[in-house]
């Protein structure tokens, strides 16, 4: 499924031993994908390959991270892999929805690629419908995390220090009190499937998600990517003197493809 860009480099390009892999879930508000766009654009990551897959709706366009005329004509498709060896970071970006009935084969292929490329751990950026929160979830932070048992052993303590909140399990049958509790991520796309499969395959995976609704999800993307940054420290976070909180919004570079997200300019004849 993975096709390296520079065919000459061959296996070197697809060996991500010890790297952290970031993957977005195609989820409500596309927050994971927007956050990944910010990571790729800010860290100026290099494309190292793409996924040749029949699981996603095809799309193609010119370079979404173009900064100048010279680099604006490279083609870009629906599932591409970028890397930054200096931070041992590799990132998959997904740019179109799943074709019906194809999300399961995609998950299997993705996890098998993860194992084959020897990534140390996977972080899934995702989101979940805000309107499905229960009373307790309505208060406090809208951010949640999940760790597979293998990653829990490695970094569980760090999550406590960061004061992060683990995603709550919900009753399988709401309203009936003594039922099993299950993981439920409404609007999360393939998040739950990736997580449960990784648990059973012994993959070190974390899920970082935000409760949100459809709309202008750019602020949600910033919040999620700052959340990720608290852990992975991808960019320096500045402490804002005025309100004594970490505000990294200025550290992230918005890609050129985020223009015109809400339509074209208005026709002057309207007025």
């Amino acid at each position, binding site marked *: 499924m993975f096709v390296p860009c520079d065919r000459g480099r061959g296996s070197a390009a697809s060996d991500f031993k010890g790297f952290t892999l970031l993957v977005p879930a*195609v*989820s*409500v*508000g*596309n927050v994971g994908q927007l956050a990944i766009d910010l990571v790729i654009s800010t860290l100026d990551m290099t494309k190292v390959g793409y996924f040749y897959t*029949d699981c996603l*709706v*095809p*799309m*193609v*366009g*010119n*370079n*979404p991270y*173009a900064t100048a005329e010279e680099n*604006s*004509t*490279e*083609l870009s*498709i*629906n599932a591409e892999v970028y890397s930054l060896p200096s931070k041992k970071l590799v990132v998959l970006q997904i740019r*179109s*929805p*799943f*074709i*019906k*009935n*194809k*999300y399961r084969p995609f998950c299997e292929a993705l996890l098998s690629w993860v194992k084959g490329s020897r990534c140390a751990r996977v972080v899934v950026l995702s989101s979940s*419908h805000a*309107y499905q929160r229960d009373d307790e979830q309505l208060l406090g932070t809208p951010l949640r995390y999940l760790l597979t048992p293998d990653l829990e052993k490695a970094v569980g303590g760090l999550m406590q220090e960061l004061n992060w909140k683990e995603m709550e399990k919900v009753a399988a049958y709401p309203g009936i009190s003594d039922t099993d509790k299950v993981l439920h991520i409404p*609007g999360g*796309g393939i998040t*739950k499937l990736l997580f449960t499969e990784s648990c059973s395959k012994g993959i070190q995976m974390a899920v970082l998600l935000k409760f949100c*609704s*459809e709309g202008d999800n750019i602020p949600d993307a910033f919040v999620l990517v700052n959340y990720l940054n608290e852990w992975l420290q991808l960019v320096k976070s500045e402490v804002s003197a005025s309100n004594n909180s970490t505000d990294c919004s200025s550290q992230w570079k918005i890609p*050129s*493809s*985020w*223009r*015109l*997200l809400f*339509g*074209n*300019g*208005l*026709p*002057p*004849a309207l007025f």
Partner: protein
Amino acid sequence: MATFFGEVVVAPSRAGLDEEEEEREETPEDREIRRELEKKRCGRGGGGVDVLWSGLGPEPFVCSRFVVAIGRNAAAFLSSFILDSVCWEVVGVVKLWNEWCRTSSATNVLPTDSFCLFYRLISDPTVLLCQCSCYVAEDQQFQWLEKVFGSMQKEGLQVTILSTCPVADYKTQESTLTLASPFLKALKTKEFQEQVCCPLLEQPNIVRDLPAA
């Protein structure tokens, strides 16, 4: 999401999410309909897409230039300006079925039919043309691609894809009302070294579906 009348409905998502399949409740009729649809689409195997070639010799056959016109406008362009019965002959057809259209193996088609035909230039048999005016569904696009390109040698092959999109879908700073249309935009791979006859497609515009595949 609660609506005005108090009932809770699932909010549609831009991310194009499906409900989790285990939670979907199907009546026996729904299940029967779904099974019939699947049988029709995949009846002949391979996602229900079949490519039938004739007179092209053993596969993979040699092809130097392949022009693909996708959609009725592009297909009509080829019919009006390029194709004629003197210089071009039909060498292949795609048979497919989906909920929106069905093609047949007939080669004398009307412009209003849905069809997908391949033509070869008689004076240079390595030049192929494809007119695809039928709608190829999302889950059939990959099969179409693999079956068509799987039959041809790809060394030295130059592919040109012609397609149209509504002007209203074009994203630009000004309003599309004031744009002079129709206008041409192009996308090209880095291997394409020749001069392109029009400006390249700017971000954030993208191309989807079969032309993208």
